[in-house]
């Protein structure tokens, strides 16, 4: 790959987010559309940091009820259980399905936490125009883009069980309000990751190159 060692924006070139075509955008103030696919062109996603913070803070707030409220109620003639995300995992572990417990733990605890913390770190580092390990930070962003969707796992499990196990007094499974909050956290963090513009990580570096 031949290197020009410059960001596209530095040369007033703008890459289309839909079709990847690089085209010149000279008048900063006026909206320009991609000549190939008509998508509105931006050097950087507009208001990326502010929008990402807003979605992330909303996700943090909902993360509390998502973990404290009941996600699933299981009732039968002989027993009744009301599970939060964590107690459900502990129950799975104790009843011997430790493999499933680990999978659910990764999807419902590790991944949402990883997303919340990573996005916070990325946003703070971008706002402080940090020069610290841009390559690793970009990799971190790609990782959360890639794994974020897997936290929907619990939502699907609750849906399937609540729909299938409707046997009246024999056995009934109900989805709890925690599931709604958890679903909202997953969707909000996905939107937050989509709003974040990883090119902002590299911009402080570019400026430095120019001064040198």
């Amino acid at each position: 790959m031949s290197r020009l060692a410059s960001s596209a924006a530095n040369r007033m070139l703008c890459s289309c987010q839909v079709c990847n075509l690089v085209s010149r955008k000279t008048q900063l103030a006026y909206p320009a559309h991609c000549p190939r696919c008509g998508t509105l062109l931006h050097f950087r996603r507009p208001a990326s940091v502010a929008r990402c913070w807003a979605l992330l803070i909303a996700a943090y707030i909902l993360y509390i009820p998502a973990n404290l409220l009941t996600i699933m109620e299981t009732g039968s003639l002989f027993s009744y259980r009301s599970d939060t995300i964590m107690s459900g995992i502990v129950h799975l572990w104790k009843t011997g399905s430790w493999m499933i417990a680990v999978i659910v733990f990764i999807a419902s605890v590790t991944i949402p936490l990883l997303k919340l913390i990573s996005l916070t770190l990325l946003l703070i580092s971008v706002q402080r125009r940090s020069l610290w390990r841009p390559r690793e930070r970009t990799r971190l962003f790609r990782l959360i883009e890639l794994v974020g969707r897997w936290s929907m796992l619990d939502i699907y499990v609750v849906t399937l069980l609540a729909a299938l196990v409707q046997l009246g007094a024999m056995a009934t499974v109900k989805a709890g309000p925690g599931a709604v909050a958890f679903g909202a956290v997953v969707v909000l963090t996905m939107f937050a990751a989509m709003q974040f513009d990883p090119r902002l990580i590299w911009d402080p570096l570019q400026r430095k190159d120019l001064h040198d």
Partner: protein
Amino acid sequence: MADRPAQLIACHYCDLLQREIPLNPGCTASCSRCGAVLYRNATDSIDRTLAYTLAAAVLFAVANTFPIFSIEVQGDRSAINLYGAVASLWDQEMKSIALLVLITAIVMPAVELISMTYLLLPLKFRRVPPGCALFMRTLRYVEPWGMVEVFMLGVLVSLVKLTSSFKVIPGIALWSFGALTLLLAAVASSFSARDVWARLEQGNKERGEP
């Protein structure tokens, strides 16, 4: 409005401007600064993706009509398919969850398969479908929200949870979902937006349009 510097590509992750180089089939070009994938040379991208898409569409229809699995307790039998599960959650006043599952497991994958077919079928016969830019944009925005593979894992986890208290009978849709997951992965890995755009531009040129 814009002129077009030939064969430049900017990394979507770090905005580094680079020149495109020809690749051997099956190879991937990655950004020299951050390592993100820039583009791939997928062999017969359009033909292969179309074949996988059509096969996936058939399996998607099967997976949505037939029961995923059923449970049996003292002669009572309860079976569900995907749409039934969504409808049941809706009736249990869990409307937001029902909608979330409907969108991520049914609507988005369906939109993806329809858009792919709409774009690739005419392109295979060297025709340019009208409104192709709109469909390419749709594909890009839909892609993160189709979660068939996560749903498949959800099915497996539920299966294990259920076997501890019920007799579980797997249904046809269970196998179809498994195969659908693999086919959608094949669609994603063989699809190359770059090839589609190249074909579209070529088609437009042949019709004498700018």
